[in-house]
């Protein structure tokens, strides 16, 4: 399933949107303008973009603590996102959730999640709804290599295969859970090796290559929609920033060399070069995409800064319906 030019441009735009949003959010956090913790998605853009172009607003995703990229790729709006991570009343969650709980139920984004491994069981529930209602929708659950060691993930995968649910599990393997390298948290290297034990196909794909992700995710999603059951798709990727924020706690748990090596495979640089080489976008058009996103990001920040803080009187709103 090779992508059309329109799809390629769409993937490109989604990746650039994630990159610029995250870079700006990182700067704002480090400047002390954003409260709490931000887990940024820079470096992993090809995964969210390559998967999400296959989904409609009616398809659901569950995300992780590193959730901005998923929301942006799913169609999230910058002004509501910035307002949320600034803790403002016009944010996606009225300022009550913040980065780690950012969500948009309107477009099937069932939330970033502060609990590692919490997404997959919820996605199983969404897939159950899809099957129950025969809606033809699929649920996609993103989780990390670190999360793959949570019991909840295994329980979810087993149930998804058992009930043959329309769901795709996307493991974003960036080689680390916080500051612990994969080799110190699991005895395997390919999380997809576990798929067999769950009773579903497992595939490994280069998560820095948007087209590779697009193709593999496309097949998995097609399979899920056709009622053929779940897939575990592992995308090998890397986060260019620290676990939290840009520079994080300044721990030296990974080498500059390693980072530099992965940065040479920057998913956006690679993809843009291919698009330009193949005359799918021109260098000027690519720049226009960046400039537009840049402007949209600035407008989003301005909107957020102008938005009021939530009224303390609203504290108890929304605990119950």
């Amino acid at each position, binding site marked *: 399933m090779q992508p059309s030019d329109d799809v390629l441009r769409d993937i490109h735009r989604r990746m650039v949107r994630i990159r610029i949003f995250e870079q700006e959010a990182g700067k704002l956090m480090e400047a002390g303008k954003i409260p709490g913790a931000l887990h940024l998605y820079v470096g992993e853009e090809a995964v969210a973009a390559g998967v999400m172009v296959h989904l409609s607003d009616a398809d659901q995703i569950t995300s992780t603590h590193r959730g901005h990229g998923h929301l942006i790729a799913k169609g999230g709006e910058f002004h509501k996102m910035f307002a949320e991570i600034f*803790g403002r009343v016009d944010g996606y969650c009225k300022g009550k*959730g913040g980065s780690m709980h950012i969500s948009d139920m309107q477009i099937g984004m069932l939330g970033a999640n502060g609990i*590692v491994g919490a997404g997959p069981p919820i996605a199983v529930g969404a897939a159950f709804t899809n099957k129950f209602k025969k809606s033809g929708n699929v649920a996609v659950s993103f989780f990390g290599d670190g999360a793959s060691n949570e019991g909840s993930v295994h329980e979810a995968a087993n149930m998804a295969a058992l009930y043959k649910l329309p769901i795709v599990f996307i493991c974003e393997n960036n080689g680390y859970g916080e500051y612990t390298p994969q080799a110190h*948290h699991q005895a395997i290297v390919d999380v997809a090796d576990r798929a067999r034990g769950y009773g579903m196909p497992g595939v490994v794909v280069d998560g820095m290559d948007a087209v590779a992700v697009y193709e593999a995710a496309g097949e998995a999603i097609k399979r899920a929609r056709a009622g053929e059951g779940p897939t575990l798709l592992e995308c090998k990727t890397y986060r260019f920033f620290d676990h939290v924020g840009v520079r994080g706690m300044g721990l030296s748990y990974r080498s500059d060399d390693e980072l530099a090596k992965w940065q040479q495979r920057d998913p956006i640089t690679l993809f843009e070069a291919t698009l330009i080489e193949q005359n799918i976008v021109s260098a000027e058009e690519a720049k226009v995409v960046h400039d537009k996103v840049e402007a949209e990001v600035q407008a989003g920040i301005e909107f957020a800064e102008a938005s009021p803080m*939530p009224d303390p009187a609203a*504290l*108890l709103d929304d605990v119950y319906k």
Partner: protein
Amino acid sequence: MAESKTQPEARELTYVAAINEAVRAVLTEQPDAFVAGEDVAGAGSVFGYYKGLLEEFGAERVIDTPISEEGIVGLGVGAAATGLRPIIDIMFMDFMGECMDEITNQMAKMRYMFGGTAYLPITVLTMSGAGISMAAQHSQSLEAWLCHLPGLKVVMPATPYDAKGLIISASRDDNPVFVVLNKMSLGMKGEVPEDSYTVPIGEASIVRPGENFTIVTYSRMVHESVKAAEALSSLGVETEVVDLRSLQPLDTNVVIESVKRTHRAMVVHEAVRFGGMGGEIAAQIQELAFDYLDAPVARVGAPFSPVPFSPQLEQSYIPNADKIVAEARTLLDV
């Protein structure tokens, strides 16, 4: 580290450093003790309190685990039941949701169910509290869950001194002990002796004496309560502040004796008021000192909602000195 004027061996240490010193002391004193948890070794914990321990005690005793809370706590239970003395780290208390069976049905009950033939010398360190916009899943105070489980002990140190002493006590105890720490207190400084020492589990301390009013509290709310007591003092109310330090077992004596002297009491905690420890303590006061009370026992706790993210909302959510004073003035009519 500042020089101390009074005792030569007591220095000013932060809460973080006191925890670090306590765990170092435990690992030094107890050859069967080990630390296991997420990012405790290489990173020295995301809060920094195990820094240097990996280098000092090696990877066999300071162990980075997968993100598998149920597995980690289970490992602690099994290791404790078979002769080791684990220190298990659950990074944020909120993550107990992932391992509640191991805590509730295994750790807490094994000894009893097995007719006293097993014992579990396990210490769990975990982090509670709001205040830094970590939002609903990283800010909770869930100690009531633990105190409701016969078989567990629960301590919540307010100061660096108590943190060190309680961790060392916990590790010497042959029962499961939860040491619930507070993230806003990590940078707080206080006097901490260099030597190993214990703070007995189950002993409250009176951190501020007073004769008109008793505030029973624990963890970071001790400091807010002391602040409130100063404010109330200017209104002519001398408040006694009791730091429980240990919630399970609960030092009922100190509380009751204080209330018998002051005749009015309030319980303050950061946890959600409904169903929190305050209800238990208030009930005990009324059971044991009903005739001494001149007013109902008041409670200050968080409102009945998840912890909000936005800083101002969060501030309006967390109990503090002002709210304690306001509540006390209503109660005492001053």
